[in-house]
């Protein structure tokens, strides 16, 4: 997937690019508003990652421009402005997701994956990883064609793992993905442990390989290598 990262903070852009390159995406970077406009007009992208505060303009204006030109592209807003107004406005004018800085790269990656699935399969899609098959639209998961009995959170956990396979996912990243701002990360670690235990048991019961690895109290890795 071809992604344009529009973010004036060079180090942050680099980190995003490095993470996403590892996922097999093709990333380009724009540091200013004008830079971004030029690139969007010249090249086709599958997805834009847009910061709202840009030198030379607002990321929201950039989104309006894209929508006016009817360019079909997935849009993720990445902003330090944790204000409800911006979030609502951003989503209203056509952004797919809104991430507040600082965000977890795994979270950004999961959102990009979901946009990727939407673009490539027009929404009706299956996500297959070895013996695991997910139908994201229906929130159902199968192992060797047997349906897994999962709670909503466990299903989300599995999808998040598969989206970030072979990467170390921190517990904080998982907590934020599952509960958003609703839980302080420290509180929810016990619950994450419980969910992962249940998910692993269910996967093993249906004959799946044990992919989930614990990384020294730091986080987890869905290791399919």
């Amino acid at each position, binding site marked *: 997937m071809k992604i344009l990262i529009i973010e004036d*903070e060079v*180090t*942050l852009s680099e*980190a*995003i690019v*490095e*993470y996403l390159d*590892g996922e097999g995406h093709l990333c380009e970077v724009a540091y200013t508003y004008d830079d971004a406009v030029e690139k969007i007009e010249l090249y086709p992208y599958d997805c834009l990652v847009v910061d709202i*505060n840009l030198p030379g303009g607002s990321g929201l204006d950039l989104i309006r421009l894209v929508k006016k030109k009817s360019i079909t592209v997935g849009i993720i807003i990445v902003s*330090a*402005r*944790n204000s*409800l*107004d911006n979030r609502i406005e951003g989503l209203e004018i056509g952004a797919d997701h809104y991430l*507040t*800085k*600082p*965000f*977890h*790269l*795994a979270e950004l990656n999961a959102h990009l994956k979901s946009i990727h699935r939407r673009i490539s399969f027009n929404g009706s899609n299956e996500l297959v990883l070895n013996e695991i098959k997910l139908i994201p639209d229906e929130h159902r998961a199968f192992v060797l064609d047997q349906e897994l009995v999962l*709670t*909503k*959170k466990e299903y989300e956990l599995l999808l998040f793992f598969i989206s970030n396979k072979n*990467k*170390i996912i*921190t517990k*904080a*990243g998982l907590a934020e993905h599952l*509960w*958003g*701002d*609703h*839980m*302080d*990360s*420290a*509180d*929810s670690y*016990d*619950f994450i442990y*419980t*969910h992962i235990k249940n998910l692993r048991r269910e996967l093993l019961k249906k004959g799946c390989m044990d992919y989930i690895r614990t*990384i*020294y*109290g*730091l*986080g987890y890795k869905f290791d399919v290598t």
Partner: protein
Amino acid sequence: MRLLTKTTLNLLSISLFIYLFGIIAFYYSLRVQVDSNVNKEMDKRKASIVRQMEEAHSSVAQPPNRNEMVLVTPVERKSSADRYADTLIFNKEEQRYQLYRQLGFHDKVNNQNYFIQIFKSLEETDRLIVRIITTMTVLIVLLIIALLVVNRYSSRLVWGAFYDTVDKINRYDLNAHEDFALQESDVKEFKDLNRGLKAMTARIKNDYLNLKEYTENASHEIQTPLAIINSKLELLLQSGEMSEKQYRALADAYEASIRLSKYNSTLILLAKIENKQFPESKKVSPEAILDNLLENLDDLIRTKKIEVIRKITPDVSLQMNPYLAEMLIVNLVKNAVRHNVKGGKLVLKVDSGFLQISNTGPETALDENLLFKRYFKSSSSPESLGLGLAIVQKICALYGFDVRYQFQEGLHCMTVRFDNKVERV
């Protein structure tokens, strides 16, 4: 008491006192004047009576006219002094006493000493004095009334600018983008007041905008470096072979950085609530927020085997900022779940007028005074930020809600009273 009422009352009481005093003084001065006039007249009569008596060789004077009586009494000795006095004489025709001025004197006519008294009725002069005093009183009352009306009217005009200023101050909102425009006045004092107020509000607004800008900038400036730190640490994690020791160090750094960013955004949120930067307001349903929240926390609640008891009156709605409403309820419920015990209870009560979240927990009551302090942490969750209830309290203060903690029947209850704020749909 309004200034106008106060000055009017003062004016009224003082002028009434002065006028009353003046009228009494006026009455007596008239009286004195009239008496001296009557005395002079009676002196003239005295001369004419003596002349008449000498000419007529008789002790009988001319028959008295209607307003006058003369009484001549023969006496042995003659005393020299004339005596003026007031006296009452019974009038048989009118059956009442009437006031007379009396002059008594002695005289010797044809070798006979007489004591002669002249009585002159004061009835008419009295009537005149009463009429004059009445007219004056009426005039003065009318004058006072006119003065009050004029005073009131002119005060309205003069103080109009002042009342306008007071009204504008009351309605002044730092968040409003309109200018602080005050009504012009030609009174120097009010001009000074308005000039001072304008300068003050301009200064406050300027400071406020600087502060606001600072909080927004701080949010952006701090969150971006934090985002860089977090993402670089995350990248480092993915980089491959590292020793367990290195991983653990990295994990600690990552965890600390995440906490730092949460602190930062929470403190910015508190500052924003304090600065009233959530002007948007609409009807929100506590029930909908609770439903949403319970669904999100469903797994946690089930893992802890917490029994959720709902006592929610349907269709209660609050007029407030939807984001803050969510923050308020989320923080209360989050605490109630976090500090709960396995197999405990979570009671959610919503009624028109209050929201109450109760939960089982440690068997001792918490200190309400410490509870709402920033960074207060219970021993059971040392890693929480300790800002949740500070947010709750700030939001309640913003909307004039009353939030209280109670420990009753083994339940820790947090009650938020909205009272005036609640509306039934």
